[in-house]
């Protein structure tokens, strides 16, 4: 942020093309999970069901966008050498806020997410965006960047959770989707896929998303 120069520029429109790219890029070509491969642990741990995944996504959405704005506002005041500590303090305060709200209003989900809400503090996506973006950009841009990355995180999480809950428990958001009469205990033929409930399947599902993404956009494939 030392390089931030006060250049007289024309006022940029709030949703200029560049700003819109801040939101749309992380959804696909620079997705935090599938391309930057950050925040994988939470993606594997809390995607067994859609509802916790949604709550987790919203928590990250709040922490990331609010944190980005706060860091961006303070970017010219933070001494370079202690910036990580400052970032941690900001993100930790926001996470505690989220944690308290979750405990107050959706206690069951909060229990299910357990330690993973606290672990948002060390979620690489958040620290990564603080370091890479918020420290060098204006609050509005940082806010958009935070939103974009959180949405990028969210859609992967929800996609994985969708398949895991549908195939693993036959439900979506807790509602039975696979008809009860299909199950073996009711005289049917169907059986839920137990592997879907285990973390390896989340890894494989994320892997399949990465595979599809890189087949569509070959520029993402690394050279050896």
């Amino acid at each position, binding site marked *: 942020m030392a390089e931030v120069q006060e250049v007289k520029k024309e006022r940029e429109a709030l949703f200029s093309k560049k700003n819109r790219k801040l939101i749309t890029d992380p959804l696909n070509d620079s997705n935090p999970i599938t391309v930057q491969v950050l925040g994988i642990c939470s993606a594997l741990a809390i995607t067994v069901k859609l509802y916790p995944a949604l709550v987790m996504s919203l928590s990250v959405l709040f922490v990331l966008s609010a944190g980005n704005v706060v860091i961006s506002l303070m970017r010219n005041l933070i001494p370079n050498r202690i910036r990580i500590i400052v970032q941690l303090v900001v993100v930790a305060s926001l996470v505690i806020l989220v944690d308290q709200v979750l405990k107050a209003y959706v206690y069951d989900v909060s229990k299910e997410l357990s330690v993973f809400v606290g672990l948002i503090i060390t979620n690489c996506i958040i620290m990564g965006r603080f370091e890479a973006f918020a420290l060098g950009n204006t609050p509005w841009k940082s806010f958009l960047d935070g939103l974009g990355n959180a949405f990028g995180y969210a859609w992967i999480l929800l996609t994985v959770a969708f398949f895991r809950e549908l195939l693993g428990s036959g439900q979506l958001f807790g509602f039975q989707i696979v008809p009860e009469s299909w199950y073996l205990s009711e005289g049917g*033929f169907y*059986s839920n*896929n*137990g*592997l*879907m409930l*285990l973390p390896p399947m989340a890894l*494989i599902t994320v*892997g399949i998303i990465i*595979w599809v993404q890189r087949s569509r956009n070959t520029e993402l494939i690394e050279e050896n």
Partner: protein
Amino acid sequence: MKLFKNILDSVKPHFEEGGKFEKLHPVYDGFATFLFTPGHTSHSGAHVRDAIDLKRTMITVVMAMVPALLFGMWNAGNLHYTALGLAETMTFGDKFLWGAMRIVPMLIVSYGVGLGVEFIFCIIKKHSIQEGYLVSGMLIPLIMPIDIPLWMVAVSVIFAVVIGKEVFGGTGMNILNPALTARAFAFFAYPTYMSGDKVWINTSADAGQSVVDGFSGATVLGSYATGGDVQYSVWDMFMGFIPGSIGETSTVAILIGAAILLYTGIASWRIMLSGVIGALAMGYLFNAFAPHAISPEQQSFMSLPGWQHLIMGGFAFGIVFMATDPVSAAQTNRGKWIYGFLVGFFAIMIRVFNPAYPEGIMMAILFMNVMAPLIDHYVIQANINKRKKRLATVKAA
């Protein structure tokens, strides 16, 4: 043969470049080369003239599995009728037919679904069809329980071919043995259909039939793991008159397959031999330490004579047909010794120490598949270092 040739020649233009079904060329190519020797030769580079090619290798392995398959058909019927108390009245033909009626559909599903997925990937990726699935398609039904629903076989096959093989680039590029990937998938996805004492013998009774009193469907390994009574003799285990996955029960049938594989030189004798040594080593180690077992069940399992592990469960089948898979096993000769030994060693260790997985060979082979490149790396490095040292001494002299 003339007929097939005529048909192939007449449809050929459609599959060439510019033809109607240009995109389906890999499918045409697959069928044509399946029936006839391809007419084209390599255009450049060094190549080896040899009677053996991928197709012949695969077909040999499939033929080596036929004894186990045929025995599995008869055994499934025999166990079914034994459970119903009809073993005496039913003829050999009845039993064989009963098993065939259940196993042939599994084979059809396995080959149909697996080759279907392979064809789709060949068309998308525009490469010619490889024969790798011929063996996996036969292996998968042989390592499933008789009662598994066909759709589960299909799902496992899709998973194995896509995640086990195509993700890595197709035949010859896979890290894990595809057939075992299918079994591991089914094992974790549908545990109630893949383990326990209900799935190994079909007990569905027709009108007027009923299951005999005191019947137990537990496998030998399952009985040992839970401390139950084992009602099969060593001779039963060796001949294969025991419950288990379809192809794994008969050590004799597997030994015939092993003889074919070893005679033709297709499977590595180093892996088989060192696998047996590893299993015996672990088995006798257990015997030595049996007095220190933590529970009576474990003690009785640990004091089982070491050699008996070779004829129980899927050990023989795994070490002969799956550990020797040339793609996923270690490639160097010294690496094969280490790889085989550890497969046998871990198979028995998992079997005895972890009652949740009474069959350790599946886990052991998959684990060692992952480790095989590491073993090769160190074997090759050791060789390089040895030669460097030799060079240094020659120079010094």
